[in-house]
C-alpha cells in the first residue's frame, strides 16, 4: 500500500509537470484554436535560459525563473507576430503547419553550435533535493514546488480569463475576430498577450522541468509537449482546469503502468486511455459538447 502511494506520488510529480506545460497549451488553444506545436520548444528555450540564469549567471532561482519567463514571453510574441499573424485569415491548418515549422526551427536553431549546441547539458540544481516523510510516503521539495506553482497558475489563469476585462476580450477573440474588433477589442494585442502569457507559463515549466529532470537539450520539448497537449485534450482542450485534470490523469496512468505493468507500454496505455475517454466524452472530460444549433 505504501509502495502504491509512493508510485501515486511519482505519478503526481509527472502529472504536475505535464500540467505546467498543458496550461499554456490549452490557453493558447482556447483563444485561437491553434495546436501550437512550438509550445514545447518555447518550454525548451525557457529551460535553457533558466539554467543559464541560475547555473551560469549566478542569479537566484526566482530571478532566473522570471528572466526565463520574460524572455519566453517576448519570444512567444515574436513567433506569433512573424509566423502566425500573417496567417490570421488563412485556415487554421496553415497556422498549424507554420507552428510545426517554428517548432523545427527552434529545435534545429538551438542545436547549432553557436546557440545552445546539439548536446545535452547536465543541470546543477540550485538547491538540493529534500525528502520529507509523510505517514510512510516520501515527498520531495521539488514535487511540492511544482504542485504549488501549478495550482497558483491555474487560479491566476482562471481569474484572468473569467474575471477580468482582458479575459472577456480573449473569450470573444476565441469566437470571431471581426466581431471582437467591432466591440473595440484590439485583437492583435489580445492574441499577443495570450502568447506572452502562454509562453511565460511554458518557460516556468521549462525551468522547473530542468530542475526535476536535470538534463536539457534542444529536442527536450517534443515529448513533454506532445504529452501535455494530449493531457489538455483529455481534460477538455481550451478549459483551464481540464488541462490540470488531464495532466494528472496522464501522469498517473503512465507511472502506474510503468510501475505495475511494463514501462514499455506506458505511452500505449496512456494514449489508449485518451482514445477511450474521447469515445465516451468526445470533447474531453470537462469539455462540453454543445449540440450544434441547426
Amino acid at each position, binding site marked *: 500500500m505504501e509502495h502504491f502511494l509512493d508510485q501515486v506520488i511519482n505519478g503526481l510529480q509527472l502529472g504536475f509537470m505535464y500540467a505546467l506545460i498543458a496550461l499554456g497549451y490549452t490557453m493558447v488553444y482556447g483563444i485561437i484554436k491553434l495546436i501550437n506545436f512550438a509550445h514545447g520548444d518555447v518550454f525548451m528555450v525557457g529551460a535553457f535560459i533558466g539554467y543559464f540564469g541560475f547555473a551560469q549567471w549566478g542569479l537566484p532561482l526566482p530571478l532566473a525563473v522570471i528572466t526565463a519567463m520574460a524572455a519566453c514571453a517576448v519570444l512567444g510574441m515574436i513567433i506569433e507576430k512573424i509566423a502566425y499573424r500573417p496567417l490570421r485569415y488563412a485556415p487554421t491548418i*496553415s497556422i498549424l503547419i507554420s507552428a510545426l515549422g517554428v517548432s523545427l526551427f527552434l529545435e534545429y536553431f538551438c542545436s547549432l553550435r553557436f546557440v545552445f549546441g546539439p548536446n545535452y547539458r547536465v543541470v546543477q540544481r540550485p538547491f538540493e533535493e529534500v525528502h520529507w516523510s509523510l505517514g510512510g510516503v516520501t515527498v520531495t521539495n521539488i514535487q511540492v514546488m511544482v504542485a504549488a506553482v501549478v495550482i497558483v497558475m491555474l487560479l491566476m489563469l482562471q481569474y484572468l480569463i473569467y474575471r477580468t476585462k482582458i479575459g472577456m476580450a480573449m473569450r470573444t477573440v476565441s469566437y470571431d475576430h471581426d466581431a471582437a474588433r467591432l466591440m473595440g477589442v484590439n485583437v492583435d494585442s489580445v492574441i499577443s498577450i495570450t502568447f506572452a502569457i502562454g509562453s511565460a507559463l511554458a518557460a516556468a515549466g521549462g525551468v522547473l522541468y530542468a530542475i526535476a529532470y536535470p538534463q536539457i537539450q534542444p529536442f527536450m520539448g517534443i515529448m513533454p509537449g506532445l504529452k501535455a497537449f494530449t493531457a489538455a485534450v483529455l481534460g477538455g482542450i481550451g478549459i483551464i482546469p481540464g488541462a490540470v485534470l488531464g495532466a494528472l490523469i496522464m501522469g498517473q496512468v503512465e507511472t502506474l503502468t510503468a510501475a505495475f505493468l511494463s514501462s514499455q507500454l506506458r505511452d*500505449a496505455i496512456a*494514449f489508449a486511455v485518451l482514445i477511450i475517454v474521447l469515445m465516451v466524452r468526445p470533447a474531453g472530460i470537462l469539455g462540453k459538447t454543445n449540440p450544434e444549433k441547426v
Partner: protein
Amino acid sequence: MGKRALNNSRQTAALLLLAAAIYTAVKILALSGLLTPYWLLVLDQALITTIGALGLCIIYGFAGQFSLGHAAFYGLGAYTAGTISKLLGHGSLAWFIAALPAGMLAAALVAFLIGLPILRLRSDYLGIATLGFGIIVKVGMDNSNKLFPVLGGATGMAGLPQVATFDFIFLFAVISVLLVRNFIHSSYGRSCKAIRDDEIAADIMGIDTTRSKVLAFVFGCALAGLAGALYAHRYPFIHPSSFDFLKSFDFLLIVVLGGLGSMTGTVITAIGWVFLLEGLRFVLGQQFIEFRGVIYALILVITILSRPQGIFGGKELGIFTPPRARPAVPGKEGEHAGSGN
C-alpha cells in the same frame, strides 16, 4: 439537352501519356548516368511518399478528417509486406506481388476497425486520437519482437529483400493517382467533400456520413499501406522510428503545403519535398550539414506564409479535373474546392 459524353477518357489518356513521358525521361537520364543510383533511390522514395500522401489527401483534403496517425498505416503496410517477403518470399517476385496487397489489406483492415469508432470525433480531437493511435502502433512495433522475433522490435528489422524497382514503384504510383482521381470524381468523392464542408448538413441531406468517412479513411490508409509495402521492398532496413508521429507530420505538411483538396498539389509537393530534403544534404555538404534542419524549417514556414492556401490552393491540373460534360458546365469548373477558410 444535347448528348453528353460524361467520362474522362481524354484526361486519362493525357495522364498516361504524361506518365509515359516521365518514365522515358527518367530511364534516359538513368542510362546516361545523369541520374545516379542515389538520386534514383531518392526518386523512388519520392514516389512512395506520393502514394502515401495521396492517401492522406483523400482522408484530410477531401473528406476533411484530420488524421495525425497516417504513418502508422504506412508502417503497418511496411511491416506486413516486409515480413511476408522476408519469411516466405526471399526476393521472389511472385511473393512480392502478393505482399503488396497484403500490406494494403492489413492497413485497410486496421483502419476500418479503428476508424469506425474514432471517426465520430471532430477536427482536432480526431487529430489527437489518431496521433495517439499512431503512437500505440509505434509502441506495438517497438515491442513486436516479444511476440514475433522476426519483426525485430525497437531495433528494427533488417535483411528485407530488395525487389521493388523503379519500374514497379512508378507503375503503382500511376495506378494510385488514377484510383484517387476516379474516386474523387465519383459520387463517393462528392459525398466526402460534402461531409468535409458540413457534416450535419450532409447527414440531413441523406448522406450516410459514417459510411463515407470510414470508406475514405480505409481507402486512404490502404494507400498508405501500399506505400509502406513498397518501401519495405526498396529499403533493406525498416525501423519503428520511420513510422512515428513525425513521419505523420511529414505527410500532413505535404498535403497542406500542396493545397488541401488538390491532387496536383499533393503529388508535386510530395516529390518536391523529398528532393528538397535530400537536395539540402547535397548542397550543404558535410561542412554546413548542421544547418539542414534550420533551412528545412525556414523553407516550411516561408512557404506557408507566402502561400497560406497551399502551393496549389485547391487548383488542379487538367488531367486531374472531373469528367467534363460537353457542352461544358457553365462557370469555371475545376477551380472548385479549396480557397475557402
